């Protein structure tokens, strides 16, 4: 406990506030700051007016490979990589900066963000542990999220070749894709 720095604590609180405002769950805050669980809960309540949600974080990689989530997550992760590789940001700052840019893009397109901050953070951890990879589309050469060890050749992305139902009735389609993704994830949880 020796050498507790007030400045460092202030920085961590600032970071925690930023993360909570962007929608972070408690597990993310605990992992990314050295603040105690009690203080984090207090901070969360003060900012959001409610207790932080309980329960486990989503831990299936499948969600990221379903159509709409794949597009949103691929945009986020490409941005994140830029922040780390070109900007030499540390991981959590790269998540924050990339997530803000992602929200901005969604606002520009007048779309609801599909990817939450906590899930975006989970995504980075999946990449770090080698469960996901970026695969180039053979038509547009964009990079899209795929399961690790999936084939890397002759892959066409979900934007060059959308599934037949995608975007027909935009809202319905995206709701449906989300529902399917959630179902797949729950099935994953049951199976685990």
């Amino acid at each position, binding site marked *: 406990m020796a050498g507790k720095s007030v400045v460092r604590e202030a920085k961590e609180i600032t970071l925690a506030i930023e993360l909570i405002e962007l929608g972070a769950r408690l597990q993310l805050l605990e992992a990314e700051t050295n603040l105690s669980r009690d203080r984090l809960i207090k901070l969360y309540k003060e900012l959001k007016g409610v207790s932080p949600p309980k329960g486990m974080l989503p831990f299936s990689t499948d969600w990221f490979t379903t159509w709409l989530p794949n*597009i949103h997550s691929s945009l986020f992760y490409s941005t994140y990589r830029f922040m780390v590789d070109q900007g030499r940001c540390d991981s959590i700052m790269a998540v924050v900066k990339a997530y803000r840019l992602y929200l901005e893009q969604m606002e520009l397109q007048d779309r609801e963000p599909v990817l939450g901050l906590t899930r975006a953070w989970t995504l980075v951890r999946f990449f770090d542990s080698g469960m996901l990879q970026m695969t180039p589309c053979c038509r547009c*050469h964009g990079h899209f999220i795929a399961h690790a060890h999936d084939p890397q050749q002759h892959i066409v992305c979900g*934007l060059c070749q959308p599934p037949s139902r995608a*975007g027909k009735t935009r809202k319905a389609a995206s709701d449906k894709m989300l529902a399917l993704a959630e179902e797949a994830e729950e099935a994953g949880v049951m199976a685990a």
Partner: protein
Amino acid sequence: MGSSGDTLSEIKEVNLSYLLLAQRLVREDKVTGMFRLGISEQLADVISSMTLAQTVKLAAASQLLCRFRFDDHAILSTLIHSSKNAAATQSHAAILLAGQPVEQIG
């Protein structure tokens, strides 16, 4: 002469606007600015350190200083010819730009 003069002054204007915007972006938030511009850290450092006099001098060129970022014609035509809605095209463009290598010095 008149129309060529107009074109030259338009180019100068675009150059100046681009440089001033680039400077503001990298000075406000260097990394986010680099991302929006698609440039390396070295380039961002040079751009942000330029004085106004240097900026104005550099902008007064007969050629454009900013480069078109969709420089692969096949990719560009895929992007504009696919019959997607506007939002999908925007998402697609954003993903392609985000994954591009950056402009470097040298």
